[in-house]
């Protein structure tokens, strides 16, 4: 019953001139999203040291989906070589992510331009 999660990878250039990998999500972010999200993340090359997660195409997020994002942040933190930022959340989910503490470990921006400007 969950809408499938689609993950698309693209690249962009940060304001600093460095390359940025963007994982753009579409559909639902829920427990059933784990394989799609973590396989995309694990498929990133070692040069992808700056990663942005684009939620602008996401319709529905629940706590199980947020837990998958936390798992990704945990892996990025353990690697010590990769920063992860977030943009494109609705104001409501921006509030929810902040409530549970995600904002402490991932820079949260309103949109892609703001996210790239901060890198």
């Amino acid at each position, binding site marked *: 019953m969950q809408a499938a999660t689609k993950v698309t990878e693209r690249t962009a250039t940060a304001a600093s001139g460095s390359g940025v990998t963007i994982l753009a999500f579409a559909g639902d972010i829920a427990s059933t999203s784990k394989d799609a999200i973590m396989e995309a993340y694990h498929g990133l090359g070692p040069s992808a040291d700056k990663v942005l997660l684009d939620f602008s195409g996401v319709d529905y997020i*629940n706590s199980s989906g947020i837990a998958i994002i936390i798992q990704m942040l945990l892996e990025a933190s353990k690697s010590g070589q990769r920063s992860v930022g977030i943009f494109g959340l609705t104001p*409501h989910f921006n509030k929810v992510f902040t409530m549970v*503490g995600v904002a402490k470990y991932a820079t949260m921006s309103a949109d892609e331009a703001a996210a790239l400007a901060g890198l």
Partner: protein
Amino acid sequence: MKNGSCVEVRLPSELGFEKVALSTAASMASLMGFSNDRVEDLKTAVAEACINAIEHGNQLDDSLSVGVMLSTTDDGLEVRVMDDGLGVGEAPAAPDMDRKMMGEEDPRGMGMFLIQALVDEAEWHKGPPGRSFVRLVIRLDKENK
């Protein structure tokens, strides 16, 4: 909408069906005049309550259903989510993101916290099978506060 208007939805114990309940709750709250922000809060709280009922209360047993009762009151909207589990009676602890990031706390387990944080009242009631429920209330007088 009249005080005491009531809508009941029964959901299969399958993840994803919580979206049927959140859509129903959103429609009722919008009809009552709640702001979009409050409707979004309610949607997440109802979704999390239903997910807990499906996953933990009914343990994904497809022979069981989750009952969702939505009732208007003088000053708000009450939602009861009922399942066949034993229920929980303790207030949820806030998630500790630092412990999650250290791998010392399960990344999951945020649903009850979100419910409590997003609505004006949240109560968990233990009971025999079919009588355990969580009760959520959002109040019109809390609008814009």
